[in-house]
């Protein structure tokens, strides 16, 4: 149990009016101090749900139905709400996707920063402001003093995402969970933000869980990668290995379908036929079987387990 964070056989359900649906089914992974983990997959694969269940902030009908989460040797999945609040935003910070929506439009940047510190530390307003200023400098925001008095709408998207990063740094957390932190931003700014995150993790020895659907981003930033499909991790291992030598047919297809990776311009891209099933009608057996070019009878009936596929990569595929 020396991992900073350990997620064990996590299952998350949403209680909908037609009955419960399972959004995450038996997800396990670990994260060490200073380690960077990428969580990739298509929309609806369960990436965000995984992220939110770590800080126990699932939206309304969602609940953790099975599994344990250990953080700094404590089992936080059994924490009460009040106990959890001490960890949220303090030891584990989160960065959301759309910086335009994440900050409360009616409060100044300073207000939103100060309250975060004061929620976790007994500190005067002036003291909190000093910390805020320091962190703003850390994320390379020009004229930080002035920003404290500004409202979110007065800032550009890139600037706001930096401020959100600054807010998540306020309490020097052990882990930052970044849920698609750059999807809403332009390419040039996206690159800057990723640089910044990488730099901060390295200087402050913070762990990062980077949730994204962009394999390119993941492959450049993280050391480990977990590929999700229909609520399960189907491949898990070191980034280099997974990207260069994908084991699971899905990972493979995913990488090949990105223009510019394997295929020459103008030629047809490799495509995975069909689409990811919705949670209400996941096929029996391997969820990927309708789209798989390797499928066999066993794939139609038996759900594959994550197992060692060599080179310290785990994959869930009968055929490998």
């Amino acid at each position, binding site marked *: 149990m020396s991992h900073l964070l350990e997620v064990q056989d996590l299952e998350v359900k949403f209680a909908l009016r037609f009955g419960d649906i399972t959004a995450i089914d038996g997800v396990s992974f670990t994260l060490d101090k200073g380690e960077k983990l990428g969580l990739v997959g298509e929309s609806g694969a369960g990436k965000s749900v995984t992220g939110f269940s770590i800080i126990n902030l699932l939206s309304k009908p969602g609940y953790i139905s099975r599994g344990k989460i250990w953080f700094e040797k404590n089992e936080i999945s059994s924490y009460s709400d009040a106990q959890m609040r001490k960890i949220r935003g303090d030891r584990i910070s989160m960065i959301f996707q*759309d910086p335009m929506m994440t900050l409360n439009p*009616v409060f100044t940047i300073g207000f939103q920063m100060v309250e*975060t510190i004061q929620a976790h530390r007994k500190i005067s307003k002036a003291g909190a402001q000093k910390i805020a200023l320091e962190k703003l400098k850390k994320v390379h925001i020009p004229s930080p003093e002035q920003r404290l008095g500004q409202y979110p709408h007065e800032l550009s998207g890139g600037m706001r995402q930096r401020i959100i990063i600054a807010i998540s740094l306020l309490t020097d957390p052990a882990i930052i969970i970044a849920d698609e932190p750059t999807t809403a931003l332009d390419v040039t700014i996206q690159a800057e933000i990723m640089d910044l995150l990488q730099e901060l993790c390295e200087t402050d020895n913070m762990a990062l869980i980077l949730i994204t659907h962009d394999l390119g981003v993941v492959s450049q930033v993280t050391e480990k990668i977990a590929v999700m499909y229909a609520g399960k991790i189907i491949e898990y291992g070191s980034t280099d290995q997974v990207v260069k030598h994908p084991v699971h047919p899905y990972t493979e297809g995913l990488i090949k379908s990105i223009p510019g990776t394997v295929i020459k311009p103008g030629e047809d891209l490799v495509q995975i036929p069909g689409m990811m099933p919705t949670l209400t009608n996941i096929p029996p057996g391997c969820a990927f079987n309708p789209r798989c070019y390797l499928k066999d009878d066993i794939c139609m009936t038996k759900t594959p387990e994550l197992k060692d596929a060599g080179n310290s990569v785990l994959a869930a595929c009968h055929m490998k």
Partner: protein
Amino acid sequence: MFAFIIRRSIQAVLVMLVISLVGFSIKNNMGDPVRDLVGERVTPQERAQIAQKLGLNDPFLIQYGRFVKNALHGDLGTSFIYRKPTLEVILKHAPATIELVLGAALIVVFVSLPLGIYSALKPRSLISRFTMGFSTLGVSVPVFLTAIMFIYLFAVTWHVLPSYGRGETIDLFGNGYWQTGLLTIDGLKHLILPCISLASIMLPLFIRLIRSEMMEVLETEYIKYAWAKGLSPMRIWLVHAFKNTLLPVVTVFGVQVGIMFAFTILTETVFQWQGMGFMFLDAVQRADISLWIAYLVVVAAVFVFVNTVVDILYGFINPTIRIAGTK
């Protein structure tokens, strides 16, 4: 800001012109004010003379022109009933209405805010369900029916509250303009029933509005982010969510306060509350056209004023709106 004020003023002037024009064009059919002034024994010739003297027989445009000219000098004509400048009559009746609306507005604010917020936070609790059910019932009962029932129960049957009028009033500034009922026990007692029945129109609306706005705000990303920052529930609800809820509510409140002024016509009639609405209906029934038109003009002005204030207020609490103009 500047453009905003200009726009508002132009709007106000426009409204008043239209209102007064329409008002004027129907004045001849409103009834004959002279008939209200004289006893039934006065001969038609004599009445004609009085009408002549009052300028009631001049052509329409001349009368209207005169009205506009005088209005520009702050003179909105003389009330036949009260034999005083209409503006003065209205000003004297205004405090009663203002106190009524104020009281009702306070009730609305202090009841709808906690109830609305609570039923947004705990939509399934018994109190919330009861509140929502009650508020649906509330919007379905006409205000005059509420008022009649109140009088019947509280005044006539149980004798706990007075049935009509303003009770004991105190001259607030000593100049006879502001008779306030707020400073005497009796005056306050008289306020209770009319205020509650007036508030009963707006209350359900606001509970619903606050509830739905709050629920919407609670779903936003920034509230989720606030949770992720580890803030306490109270802070999230009462600071983060509340302020965002307030924004649309304030705007609607501005409009609704205006509408409340109109509903005073009904409440004031039932409670014989000597305010502007009462005066207005009286003016309609007794064909006091000058007072009638002046009232409309004043009310138009009040609305423009209230809306302007609300917009400015809105600008204050909502940093993303700059009143200056460009969106």
